[in-house]
């Protein structure tokens, strides 16, 4: 977006903070510190504060059951946010993920209803895993479309994905045609498409499946960003696309891929969500994009690209989750809940700016002192 959301002085992140250079431990530590402090610090601060406040106000806030509830809630947002992080690292944005969630849900629902085979009049009922794969594939397809339009035609991500937001939501409603799909999701023995809920609404070790998926994807994402060349390319092209290109980075390809990733994440959530609410509804996933973006940015990413981490994003998602749950549990009126949520989003990102400004002040003072002595020495 503007330069303003990048710090006046970009600080090395991701690759550096991860890549140990044996040559200078000092500088390594430094870069790590700078990296984490600046990038995830504020998110952690916000998280701790929120938890502290609500834990004081309600004894049930931190009881295991509630933590599980929160985690499940966070998981959906976090999974979307991981995809969004990739997009934002590239300096892009994806407003269509919410609609994609709805669309994949609707697609899955319809597949459970079965597919009319044009030739043979028979109706074909795919297996559950086929349904899941196909639905997620639809998410990937939407992402691929976004990616092509943005990388090849060089259109603004904001506007492309805004258009796709409408298209996706519209198609969802076309597919559902005003009817939620619910019972079909159970499947029928005879049709061999049962077992959806058994898997996608299961709670291995007491944690909902969505939480496990989040963990798995987070690990994958970290490896992708920190260890794989793709990650390095992503950070590079997000910070200076032309320079990255001249260094041999396949910037167009990278761009296309990240939107596919975002689409896949949305698809996964779509499937998990219809299992969670045991129904495919027309407005499933609305506004998910906003929560995801909020999570990524609260997590320390710069919307101008090139800066952001998986850790931060996950923390950001938890900030939102703990806040929402806390507001309910202490019984804040629904109206005020929105007000507070908005305020916290702003505060969360304001925190480290304020802190940075303070820091600079301090630094300046120290420098003056040093200089004085230096000057004295010179004289």
């Amino acid at each position, binding site marked *: 977006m503007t330069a303003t959301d990048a710090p006046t002085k970009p600080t090395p992140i991701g690759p550096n903070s991860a890549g140990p250079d044996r040559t200078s431990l000092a500088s390594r530590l430094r870069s790590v510190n700078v990296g984490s402090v600046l990038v995830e610090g504020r998110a952690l601060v916000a998280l701790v504060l929120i938890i502290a406040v609500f834990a004081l106000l309600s*004894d049930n806030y931190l*009881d295991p059951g509630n933590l599980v509830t929160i985690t499940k809630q966070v998981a959906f947002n976090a999974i979307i946010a991981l995809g969004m992080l990739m997009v934002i690292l590239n300096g892009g944005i994806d407003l269509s993920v919410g609609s994609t969630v709805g669309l994949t849900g609707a697609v899955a629902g319809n597949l459970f209803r079965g597919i009319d085979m044009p030739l043979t009049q028979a109706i074909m009922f795919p297996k559950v895993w086929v349904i899941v794969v196909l639905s997620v594939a639809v998410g990937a397809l939407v992402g691929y479309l976004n990616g092509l339009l943005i990388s090849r035609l060089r259109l603004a991500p904001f506007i492309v994905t805004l258009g796709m937001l409408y298209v996706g939501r519209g198609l969802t409603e076309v597919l559902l045609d005003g009817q939620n799909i*619910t019972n079909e999701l159970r499947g029928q023995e005879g049709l061999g498409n049962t077992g959806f809920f058994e898997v996608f609404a299961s709670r291995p070790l007491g944690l909902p499946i969505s939480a496990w998926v989040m963990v798995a994807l987070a690990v994958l994402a970290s490896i992708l960003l920190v260890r794989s060349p793709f990650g390095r390319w992503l950070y590079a092209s997000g910070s200076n696309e032309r320079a990255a290109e001249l260094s041999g980075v396949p910037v167009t390809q990278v761009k296309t891929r990240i939107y596919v990733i975002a689409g896949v994440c949305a698809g996964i959530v779509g499937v998990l969500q219809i299992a969670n609410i045991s*129904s495919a509804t027309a407005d499933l996933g609305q506004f998910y994009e906003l929560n995801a973006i909020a999570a990524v940015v609260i997590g320390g990413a710069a919307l101008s690209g090139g800066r952001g981490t998986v850790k931060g994003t996950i923390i950001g998602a938890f900030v939102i989750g703990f806040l929402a749950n806390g507001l309910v549990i202490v*019984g804040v009126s629904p*109206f005020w809940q929105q007000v507070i949520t908005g305020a916290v989003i702003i505060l969360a990102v304001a925190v480290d700016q304020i802190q940075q400004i303070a820091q600079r002040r301090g630094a300046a003072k120290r420098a003056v002192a040093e200089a004085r002595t230096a000057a004295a020495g010179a004289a």
Partner: protein
Amino acid sequence: GASQETGASAADAEGGGTIAIITVDPSNPYWKAEVDTAEQAAADLGYESYTAAHENDPDEQNTLIETAINDDVDGILLDPAGADESIAAVQKVVDAEIPIVLINAEISETGLASSQIVSNNAQGATVGAEAWAAAMDYKGTYVELFGAPSDNNAQVRSDGYAQVLAQYPDLKKVGTEIANWDRQEGQEKMEALLAKNPDIDGVVAGNDEMALGAVNALKAKGKLDQVKVLGFDGSQDAVNAVRDGDLVATVVQPIVEGTTMAMNQLDSVIRTGETGVSEEKQALDCILVTEENADSVQNFVISE
């Protein structure tokens, strides 16, 4: 929430404790009335209460239900988000052995909630449509303004209208537009529809907001006197409009009465384990509001 410790100790015979009121969207007059009534009743019955809104998002409903369970509330009054989508949520509450009563909308499963006090949208639509058809003299062209597709009630009401109006071959529907329960959208869709069919005779709207939007559009075109508009909900604006003759009719859902019933039954379940009423599903029949009885309706309360 705030007083759950009293709640924890109060899950016994003499009532008291905390009740979670989980509604749809209190920024809308209808649910606002529901919430106000519930909170008042809770207070009168000696309960603490807090209100949360799921805005018809079953996922959000799940979270709110789980949160309430985690918060050891003593009872839950739920305005469910979808008949099928809400079963799992209610099941959770039952498993947690917390009394729950459903208000306004039903779930497609019995034997879970202590009672379901359901506003009878289908019946409301029929009486509304009947009155409107009569006012139309059973002939002419009309358009329909449809609610949010994601909300089951939009379909239910639309079907209710269709059922009745199908009986009258001289009533011809010349257009349907989605206006998402929203007044401004209703108005803009109506303006466009008017350009398409300048001389329609009637409008049926899925709720009052859309109906009032249509009324604005018609007024602006100076067509309101030729066109008969039907609303649904019985919100105060609509009732006034009926009184002023802008709307032919609306149907009021006696949500206040219903919510009071619901809270009393919830209280009795909390104290005695029994609702005190025979059947679980209790239909709240909607009441037609026309110029005659418009004055007797105040904020969803019908004073005979």
